[in-house]
């Protein structure tokens, strides 16, 4: 038989029934914790271990960007010195660009999705999702004497020079509404053939707005200032819209050939400089997409920012950025849009939000609203914008826009953006990628050695942190959950046993005024195969308190743990697998003893 006992200890209790996320700063409440790894607020107010990120798929090609539109697209490059770049889905891989082996193929890619087109920068490639084909958005074709000679040698299969009708070698001549190829006859055998010096490829189409640069040679022109001004203007380039392309079919020694030998523009669109007859050589025909820093899709247009301009593509055409022509009523419902702003600095990002476009610089945000280009209005907010290089950290969760500014993570809803990462110790960390699902904002932060995923719970307003085994190349939200693009693999939330997790709860001097911690009681659940280890750290050292292993799924244990008296204490929780801490009760014994 054992005797009953009476205790005369005077104790008080401190109950923690709500855990309010990671806060590694010195100013910390008792229910906030530090050094959290792989914890989540999914069970808030309880504290739960996060499932961690596991690999979903692997690829042999290194990833350099990702995006989602009906399916997950990744941009990958061949690291075997081929310089080729591919856009990949689960079952298809299409080459979209080829670079010289100068490292550009590994540059970060950004995608903007519009209907069945994906614009990919900095390659300026347009990928058609319905056909699985890609085409260059920037086309530049140059006709010089050398290129025409090569063309002639290819066509005629001889090493001869191309036939020229004049002593001076010309490519073409211009009229008020066209540029027309010069041609000449040649006779390698008994048959006479015709050779056209200038032609454009089928990369150009009717409706394209092109820039035409050429060296003009007006006939019988005097060398006056008007002549020099005209030559300079045409050498700098004129912008024209293709009205028609004239095809010519002719025979060559290697067979019949059809090519565009004349390009037709609107009447009087081509400046003749007041001369009757103008021949041209060294002709450059180009159409292009500006060098964007960031792009996005909004209201059937692709929007982009260069260092100093905000641009919008033609309505429904992601390849056209230079068509500013008005319709029959003098309005611009479908034309492109381009504007500059008066603020200093370079644009860093662009994103649609709440029915308008936000163009970010580091120290301000420009808002563009309106229905069509001639109605677009730009307003300016002087506030912290997106940090340079952090365009991909923008994500909208529950109607609030989150992004990485110069000094932390900002949230923008109505009014000015406000800093939400005061509690995070992000000094020295950079951020590049982020995404959001229906509750959480995930942002990758990294230093020289390690990459971290900081997770912001937009419902509770608290932060957690999850580990990531490698530096990311992109993050995207899909209907199946968040996907993280590593160099050779796509990661998602793991459904397995889970990762190692840990966190620390600190009790400060406020709780210890004339008291000493005597016991803690943790109410927790630990699933099968999971482990829990609790230690106490005080000024004297680290003491193990409890070591538990889950006996069965969803079991709940109440454990009272004796703790050596201490005037300050940090509880260190570590473990592996599924763990939920529902509450923590700390008993204090009031005493006059100082140790």
């Amino acid at each position, binding site marked *: 038989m*054992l*005797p*009953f*006992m009476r*205790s005369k200890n005077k104790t008080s209790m401190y109950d923690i029934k709500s855990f309010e996320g990671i806060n590694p700063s010195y100013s910390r409440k008792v229910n906030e914790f530090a050094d959290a790894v792989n914890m989540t607020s999914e069970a808030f107010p309880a504290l739960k271990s996060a499932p961690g990120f596991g690999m979903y798929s692997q690829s042999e090609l290194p990833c350099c960007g990702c995006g989602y539109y009906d399916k997950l697209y990744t941009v990958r490059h061949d690291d075997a010195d081929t310089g080729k770049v591919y856009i990949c889905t689960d079952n298809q891989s299409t080459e979209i660009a080829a670079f010289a082996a100068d490292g550009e193929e590994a540059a970060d890619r950004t995608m903007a999705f519009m209907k069945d087109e994906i614009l990919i920068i900095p390659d300026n490639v347009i990928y058609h999702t319905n056909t699985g084909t890609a085409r260059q958005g920037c086309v530049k074709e140059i006709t010089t004497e050398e290129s025409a000679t090569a063309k002639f040698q290819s066509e005629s299969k001889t090493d001869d020079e191309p036939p020229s009708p004049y002593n001076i070698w010309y490519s073409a001549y211009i009229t008020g509404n066209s540029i027309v190829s010069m041609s000449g006859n040649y006779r390698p055998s008994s048959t006479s053939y015709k050779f056209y010096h200038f032609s454009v490829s089928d990369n150009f189409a009717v409706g394209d707005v092109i820039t035409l640069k050429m060296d003009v040679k007006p006939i019988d022109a005097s060398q006056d200032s008007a002549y020099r001004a005209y030559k300079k203007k045409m050498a700098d380039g004129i912008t024209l819209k293709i009205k028609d392309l004239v095809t010519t079919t002719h025979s060559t020694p290697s067979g019949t050939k059809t090519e565009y030998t004349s390009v037709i523009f609107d009447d009087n669109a081509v400046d003749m400089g007041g001369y009757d007859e103008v021949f041209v050589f060294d002709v450059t025909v180009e159409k292009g997409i500006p060098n964007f820093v960031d792009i996005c899709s909004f209201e059937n247009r692709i929007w982009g920012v260069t260092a100093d301009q905000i641009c919008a593509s033609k309505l429904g055409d992601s390849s056209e950025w230079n068509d500013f022509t008005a319709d029959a009523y003098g309005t611009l419902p479908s034309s492109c849009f381009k504007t500059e702003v008066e603020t200093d600095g370079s644009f860093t990002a662009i994103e649609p939000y709440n029915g308008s476009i936000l163009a970010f610089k580091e120290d301000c945000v420009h808002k563009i609203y309106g229905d069509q280009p001639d109605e677009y209005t730009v307003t300016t907010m002087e506030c912290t914008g997106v940090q340079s290089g952090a365009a991909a950290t923008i994500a909208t969760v529950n109607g609030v826009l989150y992004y990485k500014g110069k000094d932390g993570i900002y949230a923008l809803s109505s009014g000015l953006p406000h800093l939400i990462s005061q509690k995070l110790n992000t000094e020295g960390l950079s951020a590049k990628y982020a995404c959001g699902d229906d509750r959480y904002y995930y942002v990758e932060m990294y230093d020289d050695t390690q990459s971290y995923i900081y997770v912001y719970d937009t419902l509770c307003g608290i932060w957690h942190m999850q580990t990531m085994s490698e530096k990311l190349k992109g993050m995207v939200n899909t209907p199946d959950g968040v996907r993280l693009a590593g160099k050779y693999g796509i990661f998602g939330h793991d459904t397995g046993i889970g990762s190692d997790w840990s966190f620390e709860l600190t009790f400060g001097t406020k709780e210890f005024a004339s008291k000493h911690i005597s016991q803690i009681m943790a109410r927790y659940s630990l699933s099968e195969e999971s482990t829990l280890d609790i230690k106490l750290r005080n000024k004297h050292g680290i003491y193990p*308190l*409890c*070591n538990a292993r889950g006996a069965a799924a969803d079991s709940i244990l109440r454990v009272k743990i*004796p703790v050596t008296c201490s005037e300050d204490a940090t509880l260190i929780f570590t473990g592996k697998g599924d763990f939920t801490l529902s509450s923590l009760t700390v008993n204090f014994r009031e005493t006059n003893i100082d140790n």
Partner: protein
Amino acid sequence: MTAKEILTEADITRPNLVQLNRKLDWLYSIEKQIADHMSRYGESDAAADEMTEQTELLLPREHKDIYIYYIVCMTDLANQDIAMYNNSCAYFNGLFESWQKKWRREHLPSPQKEVK
């Protein structure tokens, strides 16, 4: 039923940081009490002189809670958790008392022993 089985179930019932040797000492103590009671009322095996994890205990499996809750009681006492100790103690005392009564009913006192 071995001492190790008892200690494992006691650890699950009341997770603790008590050293194994100390728990084996407690188990030895209750085993001695049980053996003493048995020897007064009928023939029985003597308790082992030394308690190890492999030691076979005297009571059959249906009375294992006596051992377990003795360990739990002593753990609570070592933890200075008096409220929990008293609760565990009440349960242990009930179990132990009912076993003692049962044993007395089923076993005649040994002739050479003085019944107290």
